[in-house]
């Protein structure tokens, strides 16, 4: 499969604290790739460097073969990369409808946007019921769904998902990951950051493990799941 996104030797720092050093990874078109690791290993930083929220201090990021290093965050979205941030980063005082419309901020095709709102309802029927409600009043799970739906409104080729299972009940995690798989089958490539290793390895085809800002291990998800040493060393022995 052709490569959609690749990071080569990417480093980043917050002041003097090195957050990423020489991270290289590759996301093939159509795949779900998982990025795993402990808290503070640099998973979110990696996504935020790709989204240009955190500047890189070295290395190269290629999207469809072209460097995105000099782009601003909105230009990365326009190029086709949308991020679902960790936590509940909805526009709290706005309605679900306005949140979704903001997801399509860079698009001018009103008809296509309307179609995509319907598509979002197909994935997440509860959003239709909450359409006129303020986003801040939604439950945690509903806000997570809204975040994914909002990112999809940009019609991204690549979706960056940051901890979609965070704070959700096991049942809800199952439901959300079912939908993530459907989104992938419908044609969106996914780079998934997760702490829930079992679920992440289960739905991805390839995985990278970050430790202290470096890629410590990588391989096909199935073989990482079967590798007892890797499980114990990096993934808390789940």
């Amino acid at each position, binding site marked *: 499969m052709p490569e959609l996104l690749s990071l080569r030797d990417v480093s980043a720092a917050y002041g003097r604290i090195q957050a990423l050093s020489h991270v290289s990874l590759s996301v093939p078109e159509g795949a779900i790739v998982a990025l795993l690791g402990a808290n503070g290993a640099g998973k979110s930083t990696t996504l935020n460097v790709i989204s240009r929220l955190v500047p890189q201090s070295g290395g190269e990021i290629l999207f469809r073969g072209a460097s995105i290093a000099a782009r601003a965050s*909105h230009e990365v*979205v326009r190029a086709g990369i949308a991020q679902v941030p960790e936590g509940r*980063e909805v526009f709290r*005082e706005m309605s679900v409808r306005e949140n979704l419309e*903001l*997801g399509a901020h860079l698009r001018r095709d009103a008809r296509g946007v309307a179609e995509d709102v319907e598509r979002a309802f197909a994935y997440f029927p509860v959003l239709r019921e909450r359409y006129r409600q303020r986003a801040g009043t939604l439950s945690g799970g509903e806000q997570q769904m809204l975040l994914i739906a909002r990112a999809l409104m940009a019609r991204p080729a690549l979706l960056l998902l940051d901890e979609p299972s965070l704070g959700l009940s096991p049942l809800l995690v199952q439901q959300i990951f079912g939908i993530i798989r459907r989104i992938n089958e419908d044609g969106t490539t996914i780079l998934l950051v997760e702490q829930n290793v079992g679920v992440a390895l289960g739905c991805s085809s390839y995985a990278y493990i970050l430790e202290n800002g470096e890629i410590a291990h990588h391989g096909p998800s199935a073989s990482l799941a079967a590798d007892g040493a890797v499980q114990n060393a990096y993934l808390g022995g789940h």
Partner: protein
Amino acid sequence: MDSEVLFLFLQQGIASGIVSGSVYALLALAIVMIFKTSEVPNFAQGEVFMVAAYAALFLIVFYGLPMWVVIPAALLFTVAGMMLFEAGILRRVKKALGEPVNLVIATLGLSFLLRGLVRQTGLGDTPRSFPSLVSTDPVQIGQAMLTRLDLAIVGTAVAVMAAVFLLFNFTRAGRAMRALGMNPKAAALVGIDIRRTHAFVWGLSGLVSAISALLIAPKILMTPEMGHVAILAFAAAIVGGFNSLPGAVLGGFIIGIAENLVGLFVSASAIVVTPFLAIMAVLVLRPQGLLGGRPQMRKV
């Protein structure tokens, strides 16, 4: 005081209060829209207001230009100046030392710079009066006496408020500004151009300030210190709720009316303390301001 006089004073106080309140409201609107997006109280807002009026006066006195050239030129000058300050100075300060106090000091610096600039032209040496486009013939409303100019001020101010309301709520740029104020990270992630939106907010704030300055200029004596009126606009913003645009408007009218009523019923020298009494009353009874949202917990 018999009831007839009381009723007359009440009408006059409210009518005059609406006139001055509409100017405070515009200036408060300009302050709040910046605070909501940049989280900086712009302490140069009064000087921006002052410079807009002097820019217009400058073109009239030195070039003898007609009003239909002077007004758009002064508005444009103010908008450009605000955008330049945001993009050229504030953005750099934010990048170098991102702490809010440094940004506040940058706005204080701007206020000194602008006052110095006006003094440099020599126009500020003596108080000036600004020509009025509208006649100051008296108009009676109920038992209150106003002038045609007063009505034009209120009319224009209300039209500007309505335009700002429509812009914020029903346009793409307005939604981007609201989104940026609510959640800057999420705004960047949905593809809002953060830099351009900041510049746009500052430009819009400059425009609203400049309009309020040109409205009130014919009614007051212009001095380089006229920007002190911004203190009343800050009071209005606090009374209305510092993060609420409708609150800024409401607060502006409340301060304007309260000042005039106190002036008529108590004494003219009590006018000065009125805004501060209003602030204290609001802070005790409803700390977030009349229309301010619940104070939000901020993640550090």
